[in-house]
């Protein structure tokens, strides 16, 4: 027991030490440096996924391709071991800061500035983490006269199941981004089971019944098989596909293939009721229903380049039913959601459409508050140091 206790105390001392913080900051510099190099060829999203939001970075052999030996890959060709990713390093810094405040700080009036500065940094890191796991971004495209209460994600996908073709429907959905072969998706409402056989994050679909890898599959477009293709630099262009073994209740097992590019949902008839199943962009439920009343655009003379455009919408929610104008640089904010005027287009029937970028982030103010607290802490700290009597300072230097 004393041995374990001694080891534990050693670990706490190490994790709360200044030396640990300096090493973590150096590692963070390296991660940002290599992440920036990686971004050159693989795009921002891939760099975020593989470096900043990762526990471990990829090693060079995972992203160096001899067919295209670019200068960046050659520069860092010595990097054979993975580095701790952004998540690991930032968690290490958070633990270090928290433990040093808990175990090493002397608490008193004289330390108020220093305590506030460190508390601000803790809030900044905590806010960043919570934003990372809870914030959502999507878009909402509406035709004039159209209303909806869901936005669609740019990059995330879901398997959605709903009953019949109603205006108001209850949707049962599973996110597909973390799916692995062997995972079982259960829709108990219709006793429908989907067992993942293969999951492609980006795939091309083929209709060729004579191909070697063709399965007897069930889907609307008649797709026979999928082939994996490399992830696109622009993640919203990736088209995932999933091959399932599926069964209803105790029924026979069949192969089901869902592809993001398939325009129609698969219809299943269960107890004489039609149900629809679709692989589609993940929906973000909104706390309000947004209806596009009118879209207005002004164009530069003799061109199709817009000088400004705006949308008049009706927003309806609990205790709210009013009209709002959303225009460039003037978003509408409500309940942690921000709606930006993003784009526009024309529907097949010639009517106008407006697209809003929708961002959901309840912790949007955290970085501002954290920075404010840190700055106030620094002002108090240095102010108190400057106002300390000279005699006391001389005493310190002895």
């Amino acid at each position, binding site marked *: 027991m004393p041995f374990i206790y001694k080891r534990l105390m050693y670990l*706490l001392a190490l994790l709360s030490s200044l030396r640990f913080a300096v090493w973590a900051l150096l590692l963070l510099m390296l991660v940002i440096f290599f992440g920036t190099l990686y971004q050159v060829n693989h795009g921002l999203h891939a760099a975020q996924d593989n470096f900043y939001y990762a526990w471990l970075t990829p090693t060079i052999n995972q992203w160096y391709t001899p067919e295209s030996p670019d200068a960046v890959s050659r520069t860092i060709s010595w990097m054979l071991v993975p580095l701790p990713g952004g998540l690991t390093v930032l968690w290490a810094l958070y633990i270090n800061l928290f433990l040093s405040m808990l175990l090493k700080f002397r608490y008193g009036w004289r330390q108020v500035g220093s305590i506030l500065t460190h508390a601000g940094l803790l809030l900044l890191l905590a806010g960043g983490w919570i934003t990372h796991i809870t914030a959502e971004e999507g878009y909402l495209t509406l035709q004039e*006269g159209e209303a909806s209460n869901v936005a669609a994600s740019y990059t995330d996908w879901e398997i959605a199941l709903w009953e019949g073709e109603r205006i108001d429907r209850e*949707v049962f959905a599973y996110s597909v981004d973390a799916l692995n072969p062997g995972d079982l998706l*259960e829709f108990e409402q219709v006793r429908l089971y989907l067992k993942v056989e293969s999951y492609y994050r980006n795939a091309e679909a083929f209709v060729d019944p004579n191909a070697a890898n063709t399965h007897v599959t069930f889907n609307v477009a008649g797709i026979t098989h999928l082939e994996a293709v490399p992830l696109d630099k622009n993640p919203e262009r990736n088209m995932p596909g999933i091959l399932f073994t599926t069964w209803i209740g105790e029924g026979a097992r069949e192969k089901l293939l869902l592809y993001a590019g398939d325009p129609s949902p698969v219809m299943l008839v269960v107890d004489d009721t039609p149900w629809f199943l679709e692989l589609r962009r993940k929906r973000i439920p909104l706390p309000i229903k947004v209806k596009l009343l009118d879209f207005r655009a002004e164009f530069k003379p003799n061109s199709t380049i817009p000088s400004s455009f705006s949308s008049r919408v009706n927003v309806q929610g609990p205790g709210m039913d009013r009209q709002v104008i959303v225009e460039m640089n003037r978003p509408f904010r409500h309940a942690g959601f921000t709606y930006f005027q993003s784009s526009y287009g024309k529907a097949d029937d010639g009517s*106008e459409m407006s697209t809003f970028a929708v961002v959901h982030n309840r912790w949007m103010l955290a970085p501002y508050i954290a920075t404010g607290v840190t700055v106030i802490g620094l002002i108090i700290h240095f102010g108190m140091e400057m106002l300390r009597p000279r005699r006391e300072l001389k005493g310190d230097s002895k």
Partner: protein
Amino acid sequence: MNTFQQFLAIVVLVLLTAGCGSSKPELRVYKETNYIEIQETDKQIPDENAHDIELQETLRAY
């Protein structure tokens, strides 16, 4: 450091470690509303070739 501080530090480390586990796919249930009411509105977005026509008319005027 006193015993309480040590205890608190260990609890925080254990909670953080436990929070990093993996999870299986979770079912989400939500209400989706989507409908369209056909309405007559002003058409403001020009056709793609509209500026070409305007340009030709301007040139012809000259």
